[in-house]
C-alpha cells in the first residue's frame, strides 16, 4: 500500500508541474492534456506509437533495476544502447543470407553482447578496484559518443551521411500489427513482447536462481556476503554486465523494428528514461511495464502537443517524477552513505 501512495503522489506532483508549465506558457492545461490523450491512447496509431516508445524504456528500466538490486547505479545505458544499436545495424546489414528465424535471434544476441561489453569496463573497474560505477558509466557514455562518431566517420556510415546502410530483409523485426492488426501503421514491433518477457523473466530469475539471490543479497550488504564466501566482485560485475546487456536489447525495437538502420543520436534519452522507469516501477515486473507505458505515453504525447507546448516539457516532467518518486524512497535511501546520521539534528 505505501508503494501505491508513493506512486500516486508522484503522479499528482507530475500533473501539477505539467499544469503549471503549460499555464505559464500561456495555454490551457486541460486542453493540452486532452490533446495529449488524443494523440496517444485516443487512436490505435497513437497507442501503437506509445508502445513503440515504451519498448526501449522498458528495456533500460529493467537494466537500471537489475543494477540497483546489486546496489549499483548503471548510468551508462545511453552509451550501452548506442553501441548496441550500431552493432545491430552493422551486423543486420550482413544477414541477407539467413532466414529471419536465425537472423533475429542472432541479432538479439549481438545487441545483448554489445551492451554487456560496453558495461564490461565499468564492471571490471568496480570488481577489481572498487571504482565507483557511476563515474565510470558516465565516462563510458561520453566515450561511446566519440567512438561511434569515429567509427561512422571511418566507414561504417553511408558516404556523406551519419547513418549506416539498411539492414537486410530478414533482419527486420516484425511489426506489432502481425499480432494486433489495429496497430497497422505504427512503429511498434514484436520487440515489445520481447521486452515484457524480459521484465517478467528477469524478476523471476532474481528471485529463483542462486545467482539472482546472491546479487540481491550483495546489494543489501556486500561486506556480510563477502564474509560468507559469496564472490562479491564477481556478482557485482555480473550484475553490471547483465544490466548493460538489457540496455543493449533496447536497440532492437528502434533499429530492427522501425528504422532499419542506425544514425547518430538514434534512441538518445532512453538511457535516462530507464532510470525514471526503474524508480517508478519499484522492482516489480508489472510496475516496470506500467512505468514504461507511462513514460512512453508522455513521450508520444509530447510529440502530439508540440504545436501548442514545446515537447521538452515532457523531459522536465521526467525529472520531476524521478524526484517525486524518490523523496522518501526507502530503498534508495538505504543506499545513501551517511546522510544526517544522528536523529537529533533538526
Amino acid at each position, binding site marked *: 500500500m505505501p508503494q501505491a501512495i508513493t506512486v500516486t503522489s508522484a503522479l499528482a506532483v507530475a500533473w501539477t508541474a505539467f499544469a503549471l508549465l503549460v499555464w505559464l506558457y500561456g495555454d490551457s492545461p486541460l486542453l493540452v492534456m486532452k490533446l495529449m490523450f488524443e494523440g496517444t491512447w485516443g487512436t490505435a496509431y497513437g497507442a501503437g506509437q506509445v508502445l513503440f516508445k515504451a519498448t526501449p524504456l522498458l528495456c533500460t528500466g529493467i537494466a537500471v533495476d537489475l543494477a540497483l538490486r546489486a546496489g549499483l547505479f548503471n548510468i551508462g545505458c545511453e552509451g550501452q544502447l548506442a553501441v548496441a544499436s550500431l552493432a545491430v545495424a552493422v551486423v543486420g546489414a550482413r544477414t541477407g543470407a539467413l532466414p529471419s528465424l536465425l537472423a533475429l535471434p542472432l541479432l538479439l544476441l549481438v545487441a545483448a553482447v554489445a551492451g554487456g561489453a560496453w558495461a564490461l569496463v565499468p564492471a571490471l573497474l568496480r570488481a577489481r578496484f572498487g571504482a565507483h560505477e557511476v563515474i565510470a558509466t558516465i565516462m563510458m557514455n561520453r566515450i561511446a559518443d566519440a567512438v561511434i562518431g569515429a567509427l561512422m566517420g571511418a566507414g561504417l556510415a553511408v558516404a556523406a551521411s551519419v547513418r549506416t546502410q539498411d539492414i537486410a530483409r530478414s533482419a527486420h523485426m516484425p511489426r506489432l500489427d502481425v499480432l494486433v492488426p489495429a496497430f497497422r501503421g505504427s512503429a511498434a514491433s514484436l520487440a515489445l513482447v520481447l521486452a515484457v518477457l524480459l521484465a517478467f523473466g528477469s524478476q523471476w530469475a532474481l528471485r*529463483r*536462481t542462486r545467482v539472482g539471490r546472491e546479487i540481491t543479497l550483495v546489494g543489501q550488504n556486500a561486506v556480510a556476503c563477502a564474509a560468507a564466501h559469496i564472490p562479491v566482485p564477481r556478482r557485482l560485475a555480473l550484475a553490471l554486465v547483465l544490466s548493460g546487456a538489457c540496455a543493449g536489447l533496447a536497440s532492437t525495437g528502434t533499429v530492427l523494428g522501425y528504422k532499419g538502420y542506425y544514425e547518430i543520436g538514434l534512441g538518445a534519452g532512453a538511457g535516462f528514461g530507464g532510470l525514471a522507469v526503474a524508480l517508478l516501477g519499484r522492482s516489480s515486473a508489472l510496475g516496470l511495464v506500467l512505468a514504461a507505458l507511462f513514460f512512453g505515453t508522455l513521450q508520444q504525447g509530447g510529440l502530439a502537443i508540440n504545436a501548442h507546448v514545446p515537447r521538452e516539457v515532457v523531459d522536465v516532467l521526467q525529472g520531476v517524477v524521478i524526484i517525486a518518486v524518490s523523496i522518501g524512497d526507502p530503498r534508495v535511501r538505504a543506499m545513501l552513505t551517511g546522510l544526517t546520521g544522528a536523529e*537529533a539534528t533538526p
Partner: protein
Amino acid sequence: MTVANASGRDAVAALRLAGIHKRFGELWAVRGADLEVRTGAIHAVVGENGAGKSTLLKIAAGILAPDEGEVWTFGERPARYDARRAQAAGVAMVQQHFALFDGLTALENIILGAEPTRAGGRLDLATAAQRAARVFEQLGASVPLHAKVGTLGVGDKQRLEIARVLFRDARVIILDEPTAILTPGEVGTLYLTLRRLASEGRAVVVVTHKLDEVDAHADVVTVMRRGETRGTRPVARGADVARLAGELIGGEPLPGLRAEAGPLGETRLAVRSLVSGRALQGVTLEVRAGEIVGIAGVLGNGQSELIRVLGGVLSADAGEVVAGRIEVVHEDRQTAGLVLDSTVEENVVLGELRQFTHGGLVDDTEVRAAAVARIDRFAIRPADPRLPARALSGGNQQKIVLARALAREPDVLVVAHPTRGVDLVAAHAIHEQILAAAARGTAVLLIGADLTELRCLCRRILVMVRGRIVAAFPPSTDDDTLGAAMLGGKVTAAS
C-alpha cells in the same frame, strides 16, 4: 529544582534524565530510565552488554532523541534537546567510536564545533593552539597538533577526545566504555585524570561493564538491566563486585564454564611471519585441533587486520597461513555478519545456497529445513525463520552468525569479540557453543578484548602488540603481567 545532597547543602543535579524511553524499530533499548548525576563525583553506569547504557547516555548528550522522557541540565530543561543544546549546557561525551576526522589535523579536531574565529568566519588558529596547549597541560599529556588524525594511534585519539571535551570546558563529561582500548596500567592513569576533573567541580559519568573498575574508582553507581535503571547508590569501595554482579544479572548466577583439558589433535592453523601493510609485522602462531587459543591486546595492534587476512578479505605481503577450512566470525556482526534487511532464514544459510540449488534454481523447502534445524540447534529466538534479522536482539543475531560458521564444520574457527553487545544469557550460550566446537575437534582462535572471557575459555592466551605476537601465557596469569605484556614491556617467559 533543587535536591539536598548527602552533606546537607542544596545542589542542583548537573544532569537529570526522567522517564526516558527509546526504541529502535521493534526493540526497546531504553524503557523508563531515570538518572541523576551530580558534580564532584565519578558516577558509573553499569550493566551488561546490551542493557541500554550507551543509548541512555547518548540521549543525555543530545546525540539521540528520546521517544519519551525529559532531560534536565543544571536545573534547566531546554526544549528540543540536541547535541548543540547539550554542548551549550556544558555536556560532552566521548563515544565508543571516536568522533574524530582522519582528514583534519589534531588541532582542527579539538576545536571542531567550538572554533575561535576572527572577522569573516576565519579561524583563529593561534588562539586555538594556545588554548589547546593549556588543555594538554591540564591533561598531563599531549598530542602533535598539526598531525592528521588518520596517522595517530588509538591512545592518542582517546587523549584527543578528552582534550576536545576540556576545550569546550564541559561541566558534565560522559565517557562510554573508555577502558576497552587501554591496558590495565593506562586504566589507572585515566581514572586519576577523571578524579582530578571531578574534584574541579565537574560531573564525570563513566559507562562501563567492568565491575572491578567501578569498585575501585567510582563514587556512585547506577545499575541498568534490559533498558531500565535499577537504582542508584554509593559504591562500597573494595567490596562491591559480587553485589553488583548479582544486581546485573538479577537472578541465578550462571554456572561457570571451564575450558576442557582434553587431548589435542594435529595443528590445524599455522601462521608464519605474516606481514600485511603496516598493521601486521610478522605474526606467528599455531592452533591445534580441539584447542582454544586467545589473543589479547589493546585494540588497534593488528587484531582486525589479522582477522581480515584469515578471512581472505585482506591480502598478505609476506609470510604464510596454512590451514584447512577457515570460518571467520567478524567483529562487527551488523556490518560484516548479517544482512539485516533479510530474513533470519536467508542469513543463517548465507553463502551456502549452492547446496540447495538444482539446475540453477534454489529449492526453498530445503532451505527452510536447513534453517529451522540451525535455529533449533542454536536456540535462536524468536524462532520464526521469516523474521527480518534486524528484529532480533544482539545476542540472537550473534547466534545466527555463529550458527552459520559452525554449520560448515570448519577445521578452524576464528571468532572476534563474540559477546560484544550481547546479554549475559546469550553470551553464556555462545561460550557453550564455542567450547562444544572445540570438543568436536575444531581449532578455535578467539580474539577478544575481554580478559575474563579469554581466561574462561582459552587454553593459552597470546598477546599481540604492534602487529606481532609477543608473548604467550596460561589463563591463570595475573592482570599486571598481562598488562605489561600488552604494553610491550618486559615479560617473563611462560609457555
